[in-house]
């Protein structure tokens, strides 16, 4: 199948700052694709370029076979984009905002009531139709913004950190909506700094410093972790974990809430590791073999890259 979005060798700098360097990925029709990474990874720059708000310095980006550098109008009319910051008119009501964007996108007038009805149904904003957008809660604002980007039935939806600053309940609800949209065949590119949200995506790209460190389904990426991992769970431990890091079989140690995640060499014996760790911390500890999380995957990739750089 032809990819709906194709990014190849994309680079973009702001002055001397390299925001994105040589990024390539494809998004297939109907996919929910996640761009995962910390602030400054290049997520926003990539998304803004995809929706033709920025011009690429190098590389080719196409949406539906059209080049983002030249075919602004064509791409803009089939894409829905939701910027990171709430960007609707706070002094317009929910309905006025929806109608305004319907007019901008030239949504056929006879279809408009049906579409607005449908958007109200999934966003549950109907009771607030007359409320000013500025007086909505954070979660409702995001749902209204999403509704406005959906009013013209876009083929591609580009959402820049839609759940940042939104309460956990609304976040869950928001992801449910996204999955519903994907069921309906909308292709979605979404960015998030939250690893737990990345699990909702069909495929993800882990971005760091403008590069893709890894790409694939969340399951693939987790399986791809070749080194075993142990958790040291003990809330009494307040210690210098650099001692554990110095053990020969230990590759790396990460603090993870109130526990430590210890990555070790492939053929490490669990009992020996437990003895060694207990020895350095001068106390009997219990180590538990765990499956790595996406966050572990992310950290492992960043460390690998740092090791390469050295």
């Amino acid at each position, binding site marked *: 199948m032809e990819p709906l979005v194709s990014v190849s060798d994309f680079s973009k700098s702001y002055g001397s700052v390299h925001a994105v360097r040589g990024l390539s990925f494809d998004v297939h029709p109907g996919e929910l694709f996640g761009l995962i990474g910390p602030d400054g990874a290049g997520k926003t720059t990539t998304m803004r370029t995809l929706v033709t708000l*920025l011009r690429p310095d190098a590389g080719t980006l196409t949406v539906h076979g059209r080049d983002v550098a030249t075919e602004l109008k064509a791409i*803009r009319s089939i894409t829905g*984009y939701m910027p990171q910051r709430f960007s*609707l008119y706070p002094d317009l009501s929910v309905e006025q905002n929806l109608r*305004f964007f319907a*007019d901008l*996108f030239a949504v056929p007038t006879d279809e408009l009531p049906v579409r607005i009805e449908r958007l109200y149904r999934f966003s549950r904003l109907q009771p607030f139709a007359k409320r000013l957008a500025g007086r909505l809660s954070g979660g409702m604002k995001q749902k209204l913004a999403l509704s406005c980007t959906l009013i013209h039935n876009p083929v591609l939806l580009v959402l820049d950190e839609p759940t940042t600053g939104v309460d956990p309940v609304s976040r869950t609800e928001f992801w449910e909506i996204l999955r519903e949209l994907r069921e309906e065949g909308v292709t979605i590119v979404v960015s998030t700094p939250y690893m737990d949200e990345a699990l909702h995506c069909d495929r993800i790209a882990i971005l760091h410093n403008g590069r893709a460190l890894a790409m694939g389904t969340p399951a693939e990426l987790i399986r791809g972790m070749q080194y075993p991992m142990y958790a040291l769970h003990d809330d009494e431990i307040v210690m210098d974990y650099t001692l554990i890091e110095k053990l020969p079989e230990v590759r790396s140690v990460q603090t993870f809430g109130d526990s430590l995640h210890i990555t070790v060499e492939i053929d490490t014996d669990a009992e020996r590791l437990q003895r060694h760790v207990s020895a350095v911390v001068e106390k009997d500890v219990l180590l538990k073999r765990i499956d790595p999380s996406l966050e572990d995957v992310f950290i492992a990739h960043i460390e690998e890259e740092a090791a390469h750089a050295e």
Partner: protein
Amino acid sequence: MRRRLIAIIRKEFIHIFRDWRTLMIIILMPIMMIVLYGYAITLDMRNISFGVIDDARTAESRALVEAFAENGFFRAWPHEVRRADIEQLFMQRDVDVVIVIPREFSETLGTDRRSSIQLIIDAADSNVGTFVHNYSEQVLQIYNRRMNGKLPVLFELSPRIFYNPDMNSTNFFVPGLVALILMLISALLTSIAIAREKETGTMEQILVSPVHAREIVLGKVLPYVLLGLLNAAMIIVSARILFDVPLRGSLLLLGLMSLAYVFVALSFGLMISTAARTQLVAMFGTLMATILPTIMLSGFIFPIDSMPPVLQYIANVLPATYFLIIIRAIMLKGVGLEALWSQALILTGIGILLIAAATRRFRMRLE
């Protein structure tokens, strides 16, 4: 095209009427400005304080002093001054002028002999000095004609002043103020309206729609044309009521010309907004680009003909220059379009040029 344009215009009206505080400022600020500036900016002198050194001390010399005191331009009560104190009095700004009447003043009246009245004028402000000089001369002339029968009159200039017989400078300044305030407010309206959308991020959201630059630009200008016209009407009415500035020409013509001028100023504001990212930058940019040139170079205070050539070139591209000629001609002289069509054409031309340039410069991307 039309549907998107109407949508933007409708949205802009909602912004204008929902934010009634800003609306009040937009409506009241011009009136406040015209009251403040209208009363402050005047070249007429009243209440000139004068000192007298009367060496003659006769009935005639006292009559001369009274001639000064009675005419309304000078204070009614002169200071008696000693020669040694003159400098001190000037420094303390107690008097603007000292009149010295010579000892032989009364004897020479009505004879062939002449005596000189000395005027010592504080001309630290040359404008004030000139006025004091002129007024004093007039007072002396009137006195001479009355008291000096034998004054040999060779010929006399008898001026007749058209359009502003009292030489009242408010009639000259208030139309200029209308031009200044309209330019400032209108340019601010559009430049801030666009900058606000950039600042709050809504511009990013509109840009990803298939909207055209000309739709955004026109959609911003048209609603504010109405607001600008409302402003123009309020300023002109306040000028009539507060300063008694005449309106001798056609009100309709003045309205049409104001419409053209407001359109130019709004387009100018848009032009500024294409370079400004934040409301603050837009505001300061607009203040700098409108107030200074309009006051200094448009003929608002200083005649363009006496400027150095470089400044004259600048004056010739300022919209206010043409609107000033038009509004003064309509209000003070009652001139019709037949004498103003060239200015009207140039003004409209500048407007079309500006809005075309603003549309061209309007960026459809974020960079």
